[in-house]
């Protein structure tokens, strides 16, 4: 009998996240003839997204739609997953390595008594058709190839590393499951302050503009934000900028902080400490803007501009505007 793959879809700002399509692609790399795929969509007002998802999955889409599920809560979402597992016994569960997937994945793994390989950036088949997962160590200073040794499996996929899946040959079947709110929740999300609404998520961004000590103040991020707006990119920061209080820690890129792998990474006023390089050196093209020609960041940059970011960045914004508008 074939294996059953279950992909936990994720919704952000009312849309399916791209990492869900990347996880579906990961499944199609891993699976073999006779295996089956199901998807799980948890949220509020999921009907439209469920039929969209059905276009990518030749299998069942379990849609669980309830106002209480609008915001991720580890307890309610795990309860939903348990109810899905009563209908379908998973061999492999795949999720995005996102705030939600990082949290839900290990909870599912513990519930299933499963092994988990987190933060996967590549999947391939070995000589004996075994599935090999590649993931970073030390935030990308090294990589390891891993395999499961048996039992159920949970995998989280890092955004932006595996190509998203194409539409399926035949559409899947949406199965609506009821949600029974629990009267005895031990954790309740009381409030959400959306600071990122309408902004591009840092870990999924195709273009990241990042500021270091050289931005000098919170206001110093302004020109970087303007450039990000023109490029539909996201703004990140080095640890030095966060520690100095110029910006929120949620923007930090590095071994402590986030790892990003955009197509274009523009480092502004960042010297390039090893712990920062770990978090961005897998970017496709790296651009460095720094006053100090000796800054280590130039050693990994494809293109470098020696100069004051406050002069160079607005000029760049102007140039990009010319070609993009």
């Amino acid at each position, binding site marked *: 009998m074939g294996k059953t793959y279950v992909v936990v879809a994720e919704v952000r700002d009312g849309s399916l996240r791209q990492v869900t399509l990347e996880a579906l692609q990961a499944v199609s790399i891993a699976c073999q003839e006779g295996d089956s795929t199901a998807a799980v969509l948890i949220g509020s007002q999921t009907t439209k997204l469920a039929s969209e998802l059905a276009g990518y999955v030749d299998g069942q889409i379990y849609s669980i739609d309830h106002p209480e599920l609008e915001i991720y809560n580890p307890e309610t979402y795990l309860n939903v997953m348990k109810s899905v597992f009563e209908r379908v016994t998973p061999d492999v569960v795949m999720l995005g390595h996102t705030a939600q997937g990082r949290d839900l994945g290990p909870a599912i793994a513990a519930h299933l008594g499963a092994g988990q390989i987190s933060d996967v950036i590549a999947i391939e088949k070995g000589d004996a058709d075994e599935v090999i997962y590649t993931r970073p160590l030390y935030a990308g200073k090294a990589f390891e190839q891993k395999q499961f040794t048996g039992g159920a499996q949970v995998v989280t996929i890092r955004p932006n590393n595996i190509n998203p899946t194409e539409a399926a040959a035949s559409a899947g079947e949406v199965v609506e499951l009821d949600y029974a709110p629990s009267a005895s929740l*031990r*954790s309740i999300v009381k409030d959400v302050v959306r600071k990122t609404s309408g902004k591009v998520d840092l870990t999924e961004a195709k273009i990241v503009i990042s500021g270091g000590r050289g931005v000098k103040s919170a206001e110093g991020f302004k020109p970087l934000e303007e450039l990000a707006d023109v490029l539909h990119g996201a703004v990140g920061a080095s640890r030095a900028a966060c520690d100095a209080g110029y910006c929120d820690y949620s923007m930090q890129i590095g071994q402590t902080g986030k790892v990003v792998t955009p197509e274009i990474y523009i480092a502004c006023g960042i010297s390039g400490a090893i712990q920062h390089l770990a978090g961005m050196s897998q970017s496709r093209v790296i651009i460095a803007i720094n006053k100090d020609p000796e800054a280590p960041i130039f050693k990994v940059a494809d*293109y470098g501009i020696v100069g004051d970011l406050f002069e160079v960045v607005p000029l760049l914004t102007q140039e990009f505007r010319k070609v993009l508008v």
Partner: protein
Amino acid sequence: MNIFVLLKQTFDTEERIVINNGEISDDGVKYVMNPYDEYAVEEALLQRDQHGGTITVVGVGPDRTAEALRTALAMGADEAVLISNDGLATDEYTVSRLLAAYLGQQSYDLILGGNFSVDSGGGQVAVRLAQLLDIPHTSSITKLAINGQQAVVDRDAEGDTETVEVSLPAVFTAQQGLNEPRYPSLPGIMKAKKKPFHRMAIGDLALSVSDAAAKTKRISLSLPPKREAGRILQGDHAQQAAELVNLLRTEAKLI
């Protein structure tokens, strides 16, 4: 309040990685307490200051892990427990089973850990542990306020902030910004030497080797391809900016 802090020892983030005979070389490497765990220890100290109680730091790993545990004792924790994984095929599954077997025999109100470890970075152990102990968890917190058996935490969800009410006992993992970890003081370091330090192994826990055996294995290691320095653009800043945009279009073909 009985507070437990989960600790891991990691390479210092300044370390470069060298692979020798298919293994990551630890030759001359400086080990530290996982940076995210420092926030967890600091938060335990702050909570104990407010609510009283004892702090036990617990680590799973080889003998050298004792150093990171002693650092936590020097910061002000009361007791340390080192669970040896000697001879055990270890992954996050293993570590969570060992911790659950140990904590299952303890009385706990609050369990704190780091958001993830800066070495293997799986971010699994604390969440798995909460499930195994059947208590709630919130990961990646930037604020913790405890009132009786109720905690109110702020959770960093990729830049958004969620406020979550959680009943204790519970597991929380620390995100940057939760607090400013203190450095161990000299008197703290002296006192740490006299604090209780317990060592145990799987045989001391109600767990068999096969129940704890890893569910995943590493088959190979590699280093990222080395990046070469590219080109420094010439001319004045306006010319450099124009050239860069042109290169991104024609050479890198990214815009």
